[in-house]
């Protein structure tokens, strides 16, 4: 029995020493308080041992012992306050009671005259009872607090609190028996045995609770690891936020308080991705990089760092104002430069051990891997989705293209069947000499088929050009009103046939667009309106400017278009609505129109509903007035295209064309209009014909055997007598620029429209014969003196002189659009020289016809002469004789200029 007692006491002392060692090593309050809690009994056992050996007991020991004994509840309560909230008043009370009891006991003891006995043998006086009651009360309170904490926590921490609570009870009992034993005359051995046993048990309990030794921790950690890992795997397909949240929840379970997970996902900024115990939306709080780094630095100092030392945390987590301790767990995110940190915030110490810390780090790293995997998977899903939708889009685009080709093939073959079929039939009809008689209907079918085919070809080419970005737009300032009038006038016959009334309401507006394409769009919109409006209907064309946009709208009161078809109408080869109402047309008109509008940075808007007519609106950006002024203005084209001239003024026209069928066609057109037609099949014979007798106009093909049309044109322009003959180029080749630059007055692309040809001729031949006297001369020179000189030479002779000083002035003047009969131009001028002026004049249709005389002080090189070839009438040398020279030249030339 004795041995057992000594063993138990010895072990307790070992525990006590271990606690002391912890304190010395870690210097933390927990081990300090625990040591203090053990101290009374430890001292008692030590004193017993001492007495057993030396058989004496210094009186001071007894005093100290009593003191410690009575203060023990306070120590215990203080220890508890480290791990949970204990009201300050309770602590003060406990201290007061303890402090108060000491003198009380001492007093009692001295009264009873007890001397150096190990246990206090005080009689059961009221004071003693009070002291004991106080003792029990405080111990009980401590036990209750620990119990409450145990109920609040989970897992290992809860177990530890339970242990602590129970140990408190046991310890209290141990202390009581040790004290009561002296009163109740029980055999000292028995009481000592009970005491020491109880003390040992309680001591072990406390030790396990507060200073858990490694092996026990490891067991608990192993269990936590298994449970958490299982949970992690189960939740691995959840979002990254939730995965991290689980981790913070683990941390909170382990130590209480609250936790946040911060990851730095890009350099310079970090976010709080998850939290437990705080009301934070993931990602809602951004953490500055510097702050994050300082927090991570704190991690090196271990856990349970006072919150004041980690300032940034307070700053971001304003709610957590009662945080007194912070533990920072850095997490290694594998294969990444991310910084991840978990911060534990707590009002009390976490009771962590370094192995707990390590555990959190390890589990954190695992969580990081799972989170990364999840985000990679999410990325993959997103990529797959994008890929699928791209493939789908490509597939439908490809299908659309195939549909287009199939439709196109069908569309082309239909008119072709009519043309080939009927013409073959015609060939099979019985012949009457060199003629056959055929029903008119057949002819109509062929003609219509041909027209349809031509329209198709043009539309498809337009579409192709738009697709290839080769639309070659030449934007210029266009008067909207006159363009609209032109389009409407052109289509009026069609409208009249259906009894449809067309109204226009166009204010004075200028838009910048390619002239031809603008006309094309208007034409298409108006002709569509006519097509789809029943007889007797009504169309209105209006234009306005609004919000920096020019809007030209064509409204009809036809069948209307169902809103669900609004997009389809613009598709190739689509005609929507009742198949019985199908109209003739290429099916491409709106598709081309839409693209043309878009090529001008504009769009087509459609407002329509079934039975409510349709309004198509062309919307183009309007340039601010300042920009408009800077653009070369164009005169409004003559509103009503001139009619075919009467026989009286028609002259003779030379046709230079080698293709017999084209010749026959041209001859038919021209003779029907009253012109006399001469034909030359080659350029050379054409030139000869001109020399023989000057025609009023020349219709010139480009592709000729021998010298080509360009050469013919050049030579004509170089020829004094022929340069002023209006030349109209009629060809399949599309080189309008070249033609006009070389001096042609107009350029028509085959197939020739009869009206286009005749109108063109009418313009130039008529005005040619109407030319009055050669009156107005524009003189261009950079030197004022030269200008004055020529003015002085010409004005007295009755010529009206307009001067432009310098090339720039000349160009500006040309844009102004005034007409002159002759231009006298210097060649060598600064900035814009004579060559450029001449080129500009020739480019502009209005001035292309005006004869130009070059007046220069220098001899021209052969190359310079070549440059001017075909553009000018002649060269006059400057100098003293300039006056004479010019006048002389003018008097010689004027008759021929007058035609």
């Amino acid at each position, binding site marked *: 029995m004795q041995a057992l007692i000594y063993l138990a006491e010895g072990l307790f002392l070992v525990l006590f020493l271990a606690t002391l060692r912890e304190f010395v090593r870690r210097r933390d309050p927990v081990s300090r308080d625990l040591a203090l809690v053990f101290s009374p009994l430890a001292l008692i056992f030590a004193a017993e041992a001492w007495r057993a050996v030396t058989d004496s007991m210094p009186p001071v020991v007894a005093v100290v012992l009593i003191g410690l004994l009575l203060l023990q509840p306070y120590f215990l309560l203080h220890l508890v306050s480290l791990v949970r909230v204990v009201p300050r008043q309770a602590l003060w009370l406990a201290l007061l009671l303890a402090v108060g009891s000491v003198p009380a006991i001492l007093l009692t003891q001295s009264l009873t005259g007890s001397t150096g006995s190990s246990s206090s043998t005080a009689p059961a006086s009221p004071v003693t009872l009070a002291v004991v009651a106080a003792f029990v009360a405080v111990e009980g309170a401590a036990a209750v607090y620990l119990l409450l904490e145990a109920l609040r926590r989970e897992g290992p921490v809860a177990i530890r609190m339970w242990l602590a609570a129970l140990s408190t009870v046991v310890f209290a009992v141990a202390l009581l028996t040790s004290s009561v034993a002296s009163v109740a005359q029980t055999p000292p051995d028995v009481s000592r045995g009970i005491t020491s046993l109880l003390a040992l048990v309680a001591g072990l309990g406390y030790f396990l609770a507060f200073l858990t030794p490694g092996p026990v921790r490891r067991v608990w950690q192993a269990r936590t690891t298994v449970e958490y890992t299982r949970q992690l795997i189960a939740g691995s397909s959840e979002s990254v936020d939730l995965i991290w949240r689980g981790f913070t929840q683990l941390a909170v379970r382990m130590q209480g308080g609250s936790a946040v997970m911060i990851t730095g996902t890009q350099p310079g900024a970090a976010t709080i991705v998850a939290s437990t115990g705080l009301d934070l939306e993931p990602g809602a709080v951004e953490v500055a990089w510097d702050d994050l780094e300082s927090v991570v630095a704190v991690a090196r100092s271990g856990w349970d760092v006072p919150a004041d030392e980690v300032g940034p945390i307070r700053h971001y987590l304003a709610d957590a104002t009662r945080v007194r301790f912070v533990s920072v767990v850095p997490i290694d995110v594998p294969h990444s430069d991310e910084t991840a940190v978990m911060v534990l915030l707590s009002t009390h110490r976490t009771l962590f051990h370094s192995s707990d810390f390590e555990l959190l780090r390890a589990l954190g790293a695992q969580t990081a891997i799972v989170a990364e995997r999840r985000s990679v998977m999410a990325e993959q899903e997103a990529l797959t989705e994008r890929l699928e939708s791209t493939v789908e889009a490509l597939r439908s685009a490809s299908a659309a293209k195939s549909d287009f*080709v*199939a439709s196109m*093939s*069908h569309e082309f*073959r*239909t*008119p*072709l*069947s*009519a*043309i*080939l*079929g*009927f013409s*073959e*039939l015609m060939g*099979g*009809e019985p012949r009457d000499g060199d003629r056959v008689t055929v*029903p008119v*209907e*057949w002819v109509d*079918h062929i003609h*219509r*088929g041909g027209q349809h085919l031509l329209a198709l070809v043009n539309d498809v080419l337009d579409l192709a050009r738009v697709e290839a970005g080769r639309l070659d737009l030449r934007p210029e300032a266009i008067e909207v009103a006159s363009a609209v009038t032109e389009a409407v006038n052109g289509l009026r016959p069609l409208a009249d046939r259906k009894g449809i009334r067309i109204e226009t309401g166009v204010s004075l507006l200028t838009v910048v667009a390619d002239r031809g394409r603008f006309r094309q769009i208007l034409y298409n919109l108006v002709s569509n309106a006519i097509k789809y409006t029943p007889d007797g209907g009504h169309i209105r064309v209006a234009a306005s400017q609004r919000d920096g946009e020019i809007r030209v709208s064509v409204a009809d009161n036809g069948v209307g278009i169902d809103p669900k078809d609004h997009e389809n109408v613009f598709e190739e080869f689509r005609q929507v609505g009742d*198949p*019985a109402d*199908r109209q003739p047309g290429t099916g491409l008109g709106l598709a081309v129109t839409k693209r043309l509008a878009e090529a001008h940075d504009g769009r087509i808007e459609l407002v329509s509903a079934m039975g409510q007519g349709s309004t198509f609106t062309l919307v183009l950006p309007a340039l601010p007035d300042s920009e408009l002024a800077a653009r070369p203005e164009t005169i409004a084209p003559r509103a009503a295209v001139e009619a075919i001239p009467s026989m009286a003024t028609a002259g003779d026209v030379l046709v230079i064309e080698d293709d017999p069928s084209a010749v026959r066609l041209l001859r038919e057109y021209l003779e029907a209009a009253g012109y006399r037609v001469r034909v030359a099949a080659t350029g050379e014979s054409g030139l000869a014909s001109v020399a023989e007798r000057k025609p009023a106009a020349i219709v010139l093909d480009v592709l000729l055997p021998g010298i080509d049309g360009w050469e013919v044109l050049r030579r004509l322009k170089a020829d004094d007598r022929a340069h002023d003959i209006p030349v109209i180029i009629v060809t399949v080749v599309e080189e309008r620029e070249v033609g006009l630059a070389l001096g042609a007055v107009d350029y028509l692309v085959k197939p020739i429209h009869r009206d286009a040809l005749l109108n063109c001729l009418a313009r130039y031949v008529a005005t040619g014969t109407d030319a009055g006297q050669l009156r107005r001369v524009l003189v261009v020179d950079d030197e004022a003196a030269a200008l004055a000189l020529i003015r002085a030479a010409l004005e007295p002779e009755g010529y009206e002189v307009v001067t432009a000083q310098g090339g720039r002035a000349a160009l500006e003047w040309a844009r102004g659009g005034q007409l002159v009969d002759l231009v006298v131009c210097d060649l060598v001028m600064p900035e814009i020289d004579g060559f450029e002026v001449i080129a500009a004049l020739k480019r502009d249709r209005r001035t292309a016809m005006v004869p130009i005389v070059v007046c220069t002080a220098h001899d021209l090189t052969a190359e310079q002469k070549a440059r001017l070839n075909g553009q000018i009438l002649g060269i006059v040398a400057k100098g003293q004789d300039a006056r004479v020279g010019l006048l002389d030249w003018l008097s010689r030339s004027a008759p021929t200029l007058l035609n």
Partner: protein
Amino acid sequence: MVAERVVLVVEDEEPNRALLRAVLSRASDERLRGVVLLEAGDLASARDVLATRHVDLVLLDVRLPDGNGLSLIPNVADRTGETPNFVVLSASVLPTDRAVALATGAAGFLAKPYRPSDLIEAVADLLPAEG
């Protein structure tokens, strides 16, 4: 009395119908003498004609406003009581179109634009003999 031979033209576009009319009426081929020509502009009217009249030969366009012309061919006897021969006229580009038409039961196939003489040959071959 000579039983007249009836040809039904199923084609929605008037120019194409006019051409067929002209070719067939102008044909000097003996075999086409006295042929009666009927016309239908879509599947619905074609079916009506087949249900009400005896038809020996159908000249069938593929692209019709109310569906694919080929759908007229299968089980035509069940639905209309007629068993005419079908010659499909198509503005096709794909080589498979001919195969598909023949597989569906057409007796002949002509790609547009067709030569009138080819049409006449096809029709003459597939019409039952006079009398």
